[in-house]
């Protein structure tokens, strides 16, 4: 079987009977079993996959309304933060080592209803705490382009699964960059939607005012398809709002925020973003400079607000109703719980938490100003390409600083789309991100598709 890289190829192949859905599952499971060294999966749901595949093969025998199944036969891997009924869900933490949920997340249900086949649950930083995948209680995931490097985090296994062809698409969560940064390190497309665009129901909560439910694919068009299936109200998450698809403006303007090209950015990363800028400019997109003056405070604000919310959300794990007790928390979870408890504690609340919430308002003001002038922003995803395993593991602050270009979008609540753009001199992926005003996903998709079209982007797998 030829390696499939898009939802469209998969659908068309199934409909033309080039292969069956069961054969697709054989193929992906074969690739997963050949690449266990990557440690991308925590649970492989082969029984579920074969039963869903058989359903699809049955459907294909009938005159089905094919439009009802936009993900027909697309093999999906879910980050192990997404509850999957009857299939173990650990959040990559020993606390939930043997937890089997009684219901599935909205996104899991919607993907399934659209015809996707669930192949398994992917590794990640435990509770989504990390920017390298190394904080998993079940061992780190390796970057498929070079196994000495991290794949990024926290949605490490999901990004690796797509990059290495272990699944066609994958889900992820992005609280401070956890979809965009691993997408960037692994050379795939990753979407962090607007806060409130996609339901968080049934997804283990990290930081409730920041958590966005995203996805990975090889092309912008595929990520757009997944977004359109998963977005919108479900009656279970009251932050979700239905927003109609909006046709992007005819003439678009992109801003370059100068603060995202500051000291510490790798030359190759900077150069690759500027090359993408050139592509847009030569396609009639007006490029202007903008300023987001409070960008430098993003890490401080993020690492106050986020651990505060983490400490509250992880308070429920007491080992009484499900899971193991609090002694099972790993080092990073304990660190964030304590940091969050500290910034919320009597005597420190005003100086840290309240102050951070106010600076957060100023950051929102910066972006509002910028979006009066431009339709989208272009920026690097991370100051560097993938770094070596162990390089930042012993210094939490250094690891936190890896979120410098991604955390703002979460604090402000706007969408971000990470797009691959080539490779650095070490053979590791490079890319950029587009950010836009709240609910401007359609504009980001239009720009992303334009970029992939004019550069004649051909996705390729990290492992053949």
């Amino acid at each position, binding site marked *: 079987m030829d390696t499939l890289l898009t939802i469209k190829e998969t659908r068309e192949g199934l409909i033309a009977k080039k292969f069956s859905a069961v054969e697709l599952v054989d193929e992906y499971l074969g690739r997963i079993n050949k690449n266990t060294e990557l440690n991308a999966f925590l649970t492989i749901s082969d029984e579920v996959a074969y039963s869903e595949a058989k359903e699809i093969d049955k459907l294909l025998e009938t005159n089905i309304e094919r439009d009802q199944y936009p993900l027909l036969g697309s093999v999906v891997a879910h980050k192990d933060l997404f509850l999957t009924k009857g299939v173990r869900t650990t959040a990559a933490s020993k606390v939930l080592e043997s937890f089997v949920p*009684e219901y599935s997340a909205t996104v899991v249900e919607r993907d399934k209803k659209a015809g996707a086949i669930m192949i398994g649950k992917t590794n990640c930083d435990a509770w989504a705490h990390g920017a390298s995948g190394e904080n998993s209680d079940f061992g780190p995931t390796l970057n498929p382009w070079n196994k000495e490097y991290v794949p990024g985090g926290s949605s490490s296994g999901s990004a690796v699964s797509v990059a290495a062809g272990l699944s066609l698409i994958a889900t992820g969560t992005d609280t401070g960059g956890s979809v965009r940064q691993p997408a960037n390190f692994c050379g795939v497309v990753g979407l962090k939607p607007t806060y409130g665009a996609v339901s968080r129901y049934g997804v283990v909560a990290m930081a409730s005012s920041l958590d966005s439910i995203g996805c990975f694919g090889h092309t912008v068009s595929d990520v757009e398809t997944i977004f359109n299936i998963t977005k919108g109200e479900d009656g279970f998450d009251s932050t979700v709002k239905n927003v109609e698809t909006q046709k992007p403006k005819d003439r678009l303007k992109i801003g370059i925020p100068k603060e995202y090209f500051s000291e510490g950015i790798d030359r190759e990363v900077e150069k690759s973003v500027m090359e993408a800028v050139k592509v847009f400019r030569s396609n009639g997109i007006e490029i202007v400079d903008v300023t987001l003056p409070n960008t430098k405070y993003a890490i401080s604000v993020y690492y106050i607000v986020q651990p505060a919310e983490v400490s509250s959300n992880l308070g429920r794990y007491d080992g*009484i109703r499900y899971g193991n007790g*609090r002694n099972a928390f790993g080092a990073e979870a*304990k*660190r964030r719980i304590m940091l969050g*408890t500290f910034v919320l504690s009597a005597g420190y609340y005003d100086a840290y938490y309240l102050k951070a919430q*106010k600076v957060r308002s100023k950051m929102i003001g910066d972006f509002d100003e910028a979006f009066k002038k431009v339709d989208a922003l272009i920026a690097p995803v991370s100051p560097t390409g993938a770094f070596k395993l162990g390089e930042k593991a012993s210094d939490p602050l250094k690891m936190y600083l890896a979120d410098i270009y991604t955390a703002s979008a979460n604090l402000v609540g706007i969408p971000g789309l990470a797009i691959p753009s080539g490779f650095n001199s070490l053979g590791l992926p490079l890319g950029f991100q587009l950010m836009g005003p709240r609910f401007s996903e359609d504009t980001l998709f239009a720009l992303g598709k334009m970029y992939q079209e004019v550069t004649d982007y051909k996705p390729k797998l990290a492992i053949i």
Partner: protein
Amino acid sequence: MATLTKADVLHVAKLAKLDIGEGEIKKYTEQLSSIVDYFSELGEVDTKNIEPTSQTTGLENVFRQDEVKEENCLSQDAATSGTGKLYNGYFKVKAILTERTDK
């Protein structure tokens, strides 16, 4: 430099119901101090008359009817399936009260 003392770390661990060992106390005292010290940069931001942001949805008061919908409920068996520590269908918890000794 903002620093956390060993006592601060023990206090925070107690509030968060975390048991931390001697080695961890030292490690977390150093690490949390350096992180909190980094936050001191926020002191230079003028936030006079700025309202704090706790959420970004712009939504207010999302209402629904207060109705029980069967399909949205777990059965008792399903809801308690995550633990092996049940007594007559109830979760077993550690005693939080002790027997009176002054009787």
